[in-house]
Each structure stands twice: as C-alpha cells, then as structure tokens.
C-alpha cells in the first residue's frame, strides 16, 4: 500500500495541547512573566531581567526558610518512613483486625488539612487541650507548654501533627507491598533457617521497594510544600521559627505584594522540588541493582 504524508494528524494532538496549556504552561508562563518584570500597574511594567532572581537567591530570609524546610522534610522522612514500615509489619494479616486497622489508619487521611491544624491547636492548648493540660500537670518543663511560647514547642507540635497525619499513608502503602509477597517466600525462609531480621532485610524490604519509592516521593514533595498546618498553628511563628518556604512565599506575594520577587521565588521553589524528586526517584530505582563482583 502506498503511504502518503498527511500533517492533519497533528490536529489529534490539539486537545491534549490545549489542556496542558491551560493547566500548566499558561499559569507557569504568567509566573515567568512576573519574575522578569517590575509591574507597577496595568500597562506599566519594566523589564528587569534576572534582578528578582538575584535578589531572591541572596535573600537571607529565604536561605533561613530553605534551611528550615530541609530540616523539616528530612525529619519527616526519617520519622515517617521507618515508623510506617513498623506499623505495616505489626498490622494483622487476617481476620477482623485487618479492616479495623485499615479504617483506623485511614481516618487521619480523610480530615481536611486546616481542620487538622485546628484539632492540634485545641489538643495542645495549655488551658483546655488534653495534651497541653496533661503535660503541664506533670511539671516536667521549666515553662508551661504552649506551642506559641517557644520555637521548639511549635516544632514539636508541628512534627506530631505531620507524623500523625501522614504516617498512615506510608503504613498503608507498605502494608499493600507486604501483602503482595507470596506465602512461598516466607515458607522458603523458614526452611532456609532465616532469622526475622533476614526475612525483613532480604525479602520484605526488597519487595517493598516500589511502594517505598512512592512513599518517599509523596512525603518529600508534600512536606516540602507544607503550608496549611504551620499557617493554622502559629502563622509561621513564634518569630520566624516555623516560616517554611511556602509561608514566606505567601507573605511576600500577598502580604507585601512583591509579585516580581515572589514569582522568581516560586520558580526557584518549583525547581528545587523537581530536582530532589528526581534525585530520590533515581536513587531508589537503582538501589541494589549494581552487580557485586566477588
């Protein structure tokens, strides 16, 4: 059969192109547009080149927020991933306990994010909160516990909130990964005389690699973009102690109305998230793939 060229086939791609344009490219280009201009009002804009980027990259408050953000996301991964694996390992494998634990784990995931902030504010309040009143009645602390009193108190409350909210997701993913391991692996391990640690190290952990990759990526991105919880808790305080990147960004953009620097900041922020997601993805994809030469 004779073949002929017909460029009209490109029209088939058009719907996708339109959707992507409106959902991603146009909003992103608007931000790019703001990031390279100084806009005083409609029709009154001056091209400034990379000035906003330079300003942002040398902004010490941004550096501080970025540092806080790395510490926060790092802690989130360090706590939630091992804890999620432990919970998944401890969950029952059959009977009514399966549904009970699955429902219990799903509850935190079903609650809207700013409601979670409110729940924890009430829970930790020193006057009426169960936790706040409880810990203060023990008289262990030199100052009464109050998440607005000290940076460390705010961080503890925030970490507890985050871990409570999102560890169940990691646990559910790991549980799904564990359940997918055929029974024969455990039987073979028993026959081979493997210890519980060996079973974990050589069967469960390798078989969970796929779900762990997803868990690490999701928790990394989500925690790096955290906004609602610190905003609801202290609005970034006390001082700037819980001012993470997105809190600072919103202050800059809507508080001070510095749209140019905020746009430059947004792009830098986006690239950081993308870069680290890529690094984690590659690292987890290739872990254990290299051949050992004995």
């Amino acid at each position, binding site marked *: 059969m004779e073949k002929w060229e017909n460029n009209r086939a490109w029209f088939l791609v058009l719907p996708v192109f339109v959707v992507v344009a409106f959902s991603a490219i146009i909003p992103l280009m608007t931000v790019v547009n703001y990031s390279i201009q100084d806009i005083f009002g409609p029709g009154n804009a001056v091209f400034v080149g990379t000035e906003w980027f330079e300003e942002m990259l040398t902004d010490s408050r941004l550096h501080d927020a970025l540092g806080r953000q790395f510490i926060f996301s790092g802690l989130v991964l360090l706590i939630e991933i091992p804890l999620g694996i432990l919970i998944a390992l401890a969950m029952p494998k059959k009977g009514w306990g399966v549904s009970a634990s699955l429902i219990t784990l799903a509850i935190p995931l079903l609650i809207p994010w700013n409601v979670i902030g409110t729940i924890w504010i009430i829970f930790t309040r020193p006057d009426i909160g169960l936790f706040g009143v409880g810990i203060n009645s023990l008289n262990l602390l030199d100052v009464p516990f109050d998440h607005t009193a000290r940076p460390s108190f705010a961080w503890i409350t925030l970490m507890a909130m985050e871990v409570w909210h999102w560890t169940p997701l990691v646990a559910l993913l790991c549980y799904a990964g564990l359940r997918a391991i*055929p029974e*024969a*692996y455990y*039987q*073979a391990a*028993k*026959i*081979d*005389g*493997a*210890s519980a640690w*060996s079973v974990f190290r*050589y*069967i469960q952990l*390798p*078989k969970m690699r796929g779900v762990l990759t997803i868990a690490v990526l999701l928790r990394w991105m989500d925690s790096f973009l955290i906004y609602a919880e610190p905003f609801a808790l202290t609005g970034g305080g006390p001082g700037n102690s819980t001012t993470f990147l997105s809190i600072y960004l919103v202050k800059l953009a809507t508080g001070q109305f510095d749209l140019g620097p905020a746009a430059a900041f947004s792009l830098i922020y986006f690239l950081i998230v993308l870069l680290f997601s890529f690094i984690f993805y590659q690292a987890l994809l290739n872990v*254990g*793939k290299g*051949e*050992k*030469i*004995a």
Partner: protein
Amino acid sequence: MARIEMQEVAHSYHGNSQNLEDYALKRIHMTWEDGGAYALLGPSGCGKTTLLNIISGLLAPSQGAVLYNGKDVTALPPEKRNIAQVFQFPVLYDTMTVADNLAFPLRNRGVAPDAVRERVLEVADMLDLGTVLNKKAAGLTADAKQKISLGRGLVRSDVAAILFDEPLTVIDPHLKWQLRRKLKEIHEQARMTMIYVTHDQVEAMTFADQIVVMYEGEVVQIGSPEALYERPQHKFVGYFIGSPGMNFMACKAEGAIAHVNGAAIALDAALAEAARKASGKLEIGIRPMHLEVHDTPMADAVPAAVTFVEDHGNCRIVTLALDGQTLRARIPEGQTVPGDKAWLRFPPQWTRLFADERLVA
C-alpha cells in the same frame, strides 16, 4: 539422613473438625525409609502439598505425630527439623547474588565460610550455575531461578530429607528431563531421602523407586511403578496410572463365572474364591494392554463390537462395546484390528477383582 514416620496424621484446614469432609488429609500412617527416592503422586487437590508441608513443619497437623529417626518433631518449626524443601515456583532473594542465595541456608546455620564456599561451588557445578554465580539473582531466566531454588534445597548435605513440591513446573520440557535425571543422579550419589511431589505419572515413574499414590486425602497405594501397574490396590490407581487407564466393569460372580450384564467371563480358581468371599460392589478390572482382542470366535472369549480405533503410531487403542460397557484395548503394531466385531479374552493372570473400589484379587 533420617527415617520419617507419620503416625495417624490427619489434617483439616477448619481446625479439629468432626466432619470427615473437612479433612484435607484423612489418615496417613506410613514410613519414609532413610535414603529412599519417593514420588508422591496424585491429582491436584488430593492433599500432596498438605502432606509435604506437614513433613517439613510448615504446617502442624490437626492430629497425629511426625517422627524423625524415632524422635517426635511434630511441634518443631522447619528450621529446627533440618529439612529442605523446594517449592513449585522459584523463590529467590532478589538483592543477593546467585552464590549468596546458595550460601544462605548454610550461613544461617553458622557453617564456616570455607566450607560454605566449597559446598556452593559443588552445588553450582551440579546444576550448571557456575557461570552466573556472581550475578544478581533477579535478572535471570525462570529456568535459572528454579535451578537456584533447587540448589538451595540441595546445598545442605546433612538434611533429614529433601522435599520437592512439583519443582519442575516452570522449566522447559527438554531441560525438565535433564534436571530430573540430575536429581536422580544426586540421589544415587548421596543417598538422601527425597520426596518428589507430582501429578505427572511419567515424572513419578522416572524419578522414584517407590511411588506413593494419594487420592482424596488418603494414601491408596505405596509401591514400585511395576506394582502400581500390575496390581493397583485401588480403582483410582488403576485409572490414574497407565494411558489409557484400567478398564472396570460392574459384575456379579456365580461360581467361576463373572456376569457383566449379559456377557459371561470365565474366572480361574483364585479369582472365583476371592469373588465368593468379597462383599460389596464387585467390579472386574483389566489393563488395556492385557485385554486380548481376537477377530474370530474362540473358547472363553466374549463377543464385543468395535466402536472406534485410534492410531497412536506404535500401537492402536481400540474402543469396544461389551453389552453396554465400554472397554479399551491396546493393540501392538503388527497385530490385526478386527473390523466391527471382536472376541475378547480376559487372561486370568491379568484379570483383577475389586470390591468397593479396593483390590481383592
């Protein structure tokens, strides 16, 4: 190395049930002799794997006891029983190399590194895994993966027994034959007790000295391939072994004559005596190979109609109708096949009598 005894073992997956229907294993009372090559043969779902898992300790029986060399191990987990088991589908430790996979059962038991290395090389050599020893196990073919699983079963030389649960299911046919040969060789050299589960009679017969036939949770016969063929103790063994399976016809015995509907089949003295003593539903059984088919009338022969002839190349399988009963006969190459009417003779030395499905003579 051990003699494994099963004393009144029964197992139900529904706990200790009163209902006999719930039992995957009904009552197993038998001994696996030290150094034997056994095949555990039976159709899918007859309880072969259940029995194997009880021997290895992966499953605790609902009733009865398992003894290794006279010592009760019923309550011991597999790792305390010193037993090896190979499963139907390859089980690998993906992140380890092939060598580490093979070494794993030894290292877990604290064997010295030098001894481990030596034994791993030996097993790798047996199974032609030498060239992939330093590769990760994950990237290999299904054949190689199952060979590694087999290797992990064979690597401990001091085990009480090695249990194989249909280990060659995923292997290509030509390699299957080679590996079965290999296992047989290993058995002849090392004289380890081996129990090989299969539902393929050819596989069972080529591997084992003794075949244990299971049917609906019971062991119906233990014997050499020859014994199973010539004197099946249960109707099921008659059906299951041989291709096509044994012919069975309900009959009524009167003196030295067995009446099958209208046809009368002559019995010899021993058969007649057994028939007289037997109670329950009486059936006459004969292998297709032993049923004589003649094209002319003769003494002791009963007339039958030829309904179908299948040419199998080296022989022909003839389907016959004898007073409403269907029989199959295997006629060797060179012998003439009757057109549409045949006379059948039942040689007494090959004719068997079954009462309530069990052999009586």
